[in-house]
């Protein structure tokens, strides 16, 4: 299902009897609206990890790292948050006019090392890593994943304050405002990696509604030397945009692209290898995902 899976990964998956679907989940949020008018403005947002966009039928996205920024750059508190079997959901009051950023940002560390002749596997936060994994562990290999999943919503006139980069992970900077997208019109965005232009990065754009069609209708794009890319949305609707940047690290120990993003329920810190663990790939990577709404002409 994923084009980036290398032959070795298939072989390993077969050996471990790993279901391939483990490798292919998408993390997404779906707002009730992205363009709003009125005097008492709210959105509700579903957040989930699933294969089909945008159907919550697999795992909820955890909300521990949810952060909402208002048009004035200050944090906004989510209300009525809850996490169920398949999805999380929360409400956002849009008390000011302008653009809001709703983001789940997380850093996960995974480690593999030897202890007492056994291979240990560990997964958790950077803080827990420093506490729990012995500094001088034998054959220690570390993989660090920074993930950012975002949606943007606007009450009234679109504003730009929330696009001020934080300089951490992959970030989207608009040339075209993400709440001003119209079917058939070109939209240009810029991707940053740790505050610098993310050059030659593959960007994938997939329209929602996958469940009811046979082909993915995926648009494969690439950022230019300034980190920019342009997409022309063929139809109105919700789209999922994603990008991954890898850096450092040795070639994969057991190459596979694990897209769980470390936010799925059950992706909690645990020590010790189990057959269901995904293959280990050391190095650093940054993941970005955003849901964009495109209005009809």
């Amino acid at each position, binding site marked *: 299902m994923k084009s980036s899976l290398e032959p070795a990964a298939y072989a390993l998956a077969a050996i471990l009897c790993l279901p391939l679907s483990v490798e292919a989940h998408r993390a997404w949020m779906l707002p009730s609206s992205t*363009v*709003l*008018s*009125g*005097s*008492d*403005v709210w959105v509700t947002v579903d957040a989930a990890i699933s294969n089909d966009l945008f159907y919550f039928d697999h795992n909820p996205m955890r909300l521990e790292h949810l952060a909402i920024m208002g048009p004035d750059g200050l944090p906004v508190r989510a209300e009525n948050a809850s996490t169920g079997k398949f999805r999380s959901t929360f409400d956002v009051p849009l008390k000011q006019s302008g653009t809001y950023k709703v983001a789940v940002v997380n850093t996960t560390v995974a480690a593999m090392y030897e202890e007492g002749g056994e291979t240990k596997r560990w997964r958790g936060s950077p803080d827990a890593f420093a506490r729990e994994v012995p500094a001088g562990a034998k054959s220690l290999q570390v993989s660090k994943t920074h993930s950012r999943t975002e949606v943007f919503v606007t009450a009234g*006139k679109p504003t730009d304050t929330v696009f001020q980069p934080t300089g951490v992970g992959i970030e989207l900077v608009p040339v075209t405002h993400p709440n001003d997208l*119209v079917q058939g019109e070109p939209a240009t965005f810029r991707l940053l990696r740790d505050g610098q232009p993310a050059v030659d990065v593959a960007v994938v754009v997939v329209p929602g509604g996958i469940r009811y069609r046979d082909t993915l209708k995926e648009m494969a794009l690439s950022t230019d030397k300034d980190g920019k890319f342009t997409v022309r949305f063929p139809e109105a609707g919700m789209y999922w945009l994603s990008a991954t940047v890898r850096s450092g690290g040795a070639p994969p120990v057991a190459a596979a692209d694990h897209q769980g993003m470390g936010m799925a329920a059950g992706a909690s810190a645990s020590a010790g290898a189990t057959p269901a663990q995904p293959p280990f790939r050391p190095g650093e990577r940054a993941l970005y995902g955003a849901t964009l709404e495109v*209005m009809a002409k």
Partner: protein
Amino acid sequence: MRIALPVVVSGLLTTQALAADLSIKIEIPVLNVAEYHRPYVAMWIERANQSVAANLAVWFDLKQKNNDGTKWLKDLRQWWRRSGRELAMPVDGLSGATRAAGEHQVTWSSDKSPLQALAAGEYQLVVEAAREVGGRELLRLPFQWPPRAPTTAKVAGEHELGGLTLSLKP
């Protein structure tokens, strides 16, 4: 701004006898549907580059408490994107209540806002209608301003709007 206008136009603005009229006749169709609400309607004048030269009227549910009727203004999605989102509705002289099915005529004079500030040129009249639990439709009619002779242009809507007639009188 008015100072910079060509002599001919400023002449029109200041001479009562030369005042032009722009008149719109719009039909809101009778619809046999399970649930009917009067449509929200926006009318504006568009430049060749699709920017808004003048807002003429926005009919929406302005009688709801707490200005709740503004929640659906974004469903007039072209108007919302072009200028609605820049405004705080209701706006005096622009907003009005929704209208019942039937023909409605509205006239604007060149010696009053917003036509007073409209420079000579090629424009489109745009009328957009969006109905709660219903559809949305947008009609356009090109015209030249100011008119040199009485002119009439017509276009017919297909579902949310009936006939639209634009009459210009020098």
